């Protein structure tokens, strides 16, 4: 038996091919997070530089004025839009990092809607033997019904999130 499995090993070419693909995938993922970080810091810096330019330009004018009042700088519409873009980029970058420390899936997506429209809540892990061959594809959602992830459901009783190995019990909502 052991010899049978021993003969099923991968070729050296297959091993190196898969490793190369995985390296490329990981590099692509890192580039996406690096770009988000660049946006996170570069755009606010650009805004700060433009604001500094406005303040410098205003200073000679205020110095010429005899009225003593504080100078306020108001962002124009273009700067406001740039700030919004920077905020979105920062949020995206933070999300990429937070994804690695995300809470358990059952905390994020505790509901599942079944094919008959019935809605159930994800319960505790089950110790029952679950026959995965009976599983049907479904979608687990968050409380606001705005985000969802793929999952599998068995006989309206058990749920497993995609990529996970643990089965949870389902309860009526």
């Amino acid at each position, binding site marked *: 038996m052991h010899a049978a*499995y021993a003969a*099923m*090993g991968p*070729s050296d070419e*297959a091993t190196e091919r*898969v*490793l190369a693909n995985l390296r490329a995938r990981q590099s692509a993922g890192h580039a996406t997070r690096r770009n988000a970080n660049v946006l996170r810091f570069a755009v606010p810096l650009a805004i700060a530089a433009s604001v500094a330019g406005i303040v410098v330009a205003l200073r000679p004018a205020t110095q010429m004025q005899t009225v003593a009042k504080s100078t306020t700088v108001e962002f124009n519409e273009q700067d406001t839009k740039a700030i919004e873009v920077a905020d979105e980029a920062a949020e995206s970058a933070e999300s990429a990092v937070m994804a690695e420390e995300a809470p358990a899936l059952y905390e994020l997506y505790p509901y599942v809607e079944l094919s008959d429209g019935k809605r159930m809540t994800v319960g505790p892990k089950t*110790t029952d033997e679950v026959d995965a061959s009976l599983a049907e594809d479904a979608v687990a959602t968050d409380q606001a019904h705005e985000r969802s992830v793929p999952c599998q459901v068995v006989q309206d009783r058990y749920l497993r999130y995609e*990529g996970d190995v643990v089965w949870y019990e389902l309860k009526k909502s």
Partner: protein
Amino acid sequence: MAKTLNIEAVFRRNFDAVFRLCYSYLGSPADAEDAAQTVFAKLIDKPRTFADEGHERAWLIVCASNYCKDVLKSAQRKRVVPMPAYEQAAWSSVDEIDDTIDAVLRLPSKYKDCVYLHYYEGYKTAEIATMLNVPASTVRNRLRDARALLKQALGGDVA
């Protein structure tokens, strides 16, 4: 900032085992390669921390087992595709292993992970039960039934 996953180290430690498991399910080196790559890609897309290398391997093996079962259920697999001639030639020089491999590949999918984990990876039934989230008695029953099927197919004791 979270620690970057050293995918190459994880890969070097576990690709061989994951590939063999996928091969036992899917019956072809090409499909096994695709499936094994998908399993490691899941780890890149959603990195996680493991308690130790044993935990890491257990996670990968169970993930591979679940993925292969899903592949087998998919409509695309319903088409019957004969094994290419060059793949058959690779095994034909070792008849005894060839018959055993054939018998293992023909096992029902619910037995394959228990058989692989016990006979090749050397896990005990209690350890397998934890990995697959089933009672230990279920694991023992599956191994017993698998041995009976293999004995029937091979016409002798299963070692």
